């Protein structure tokens, strides 16, 4: 079993099966990392003429799954149809490849910094099981919201935000307002 002790600054000291005891590197300066992230987003504008995304990749996998299970229903579904080819077959989605890249990049970065850790991050006052239920439920709620918003923190807040889209700034304001409104009720889960 692995145990992770998370310090106040978010850095973690881990002992994997009691063998190796190492201290993970501290995270980068947030302004420096944000600048790097901004250059990646700018690079996407310049090279591709589009920005970053995440939730769209989930939608194209959902469309592919539904067309595999019930092809007719998926084709006549106006939401899934936009993530399928004209004939209703799954197609390779740019955002899905990009999100595969995100997981690779995240893994390599964490590996090089000694931050890979098989663990469950949670507040000190809840069990691992509760944390996983909150994580699943939170993810599902975000999924509903991302469909209506036509994107998430990547496709709307970052991409649309930098391109001055009104809907993206509206999404960002609403998302942060709701998160701050919900936070007091979730205090037990995090603090």
């Amino acid at each position: 079993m692995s145990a992770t002790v998370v310090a106040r600054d978010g850095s973690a000291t881990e002992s994997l099966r009691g063998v190796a005891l190492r201290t993970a590197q501290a995270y980068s300066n947030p302004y420096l990392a944000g600048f790097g992230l901004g250059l990646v987003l700018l690079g996407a504008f310049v090279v591709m003429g589009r920005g970053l995304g995440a939730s769209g990749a989930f939608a194209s996998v959902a469309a592919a799954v539904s067309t595999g299970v019930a092809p007719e229903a998926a084709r006549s579904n106006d939401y899934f149809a936009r993530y399928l080819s004209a004939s209703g077959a799954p197609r390779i989605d740019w955002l899905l490849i990009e999100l595969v890249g995100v997981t690779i990049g995240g893994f390599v970065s964490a590996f090089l910094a000694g931050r890979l850790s098989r663990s469950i991050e949670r507040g000190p006052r809840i069990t691992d099981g509760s944390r996983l239920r909150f994580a699943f439920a939170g993810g599902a709620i975000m999924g509903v919201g991302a469909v209506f918003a036509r994107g998430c923190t990547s496709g709307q807040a970052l991409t649309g935000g930098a391109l001055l889209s009104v809907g993206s700034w509206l999404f960002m304001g609403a998302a942060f307002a709701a998160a701050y409104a919900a936070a007091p009720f979730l205090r037990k889960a995090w603090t």
Partner: protein
Amino acid sequence: MSAPFFEFGAFGESASFGVALIIGIAFGWFLERSGMGSARKLAGQFYLRDLTVFKVMFTAIVTAMLGAFWLGWMGVLDLSRVYVPETFILPQLAGGLIFGAGFAMGGLCPGTSCVSAATGRIDGFAVVIGMFAGVLATGLFFDPLQAFYESTPKGAFTLPQLLGTGEGIVVLGIVLIAIAGFRGAEALERRSARMPSR
């Protein structure tokens, strides 16, 4: 040479998937470097203990916004060929409110949940599965939701159009707001560091 390169036919669709992978790797790298793969760190944003999310997001937005604005002004980047997400006022307002509540509950957003899962966090993996379930369920029950989903369409609608001002003024305003926000974020973190944590 004119940008966006893909839009002007500099390379084809199969090469664009290679570009997607490279851009994704760089995106995931900077998310992980900044600590955005950690649910506890992200949740700290909502209790004003750790404002990394705000700092990273707004630095990224300002960087890309200024870069696009200047490259457009210099005539290097044709901004009319960069896809601006379309605005739908009510669904995006409602979607944002729902999304934010889920974000506070799960502690990760869709992109960062993938980074979290990739670095071994099982809670990150649970957010990924939940997110998929939420999108799939909404898609399956799309019929009765479609009218609302498509309501209040505004097309590609930007802040300069909304405010009736020049783009430069809006860009400058966002930069000034971001700088004020960064100063406020640093002050809030200093204050919560002095207070005993519960």
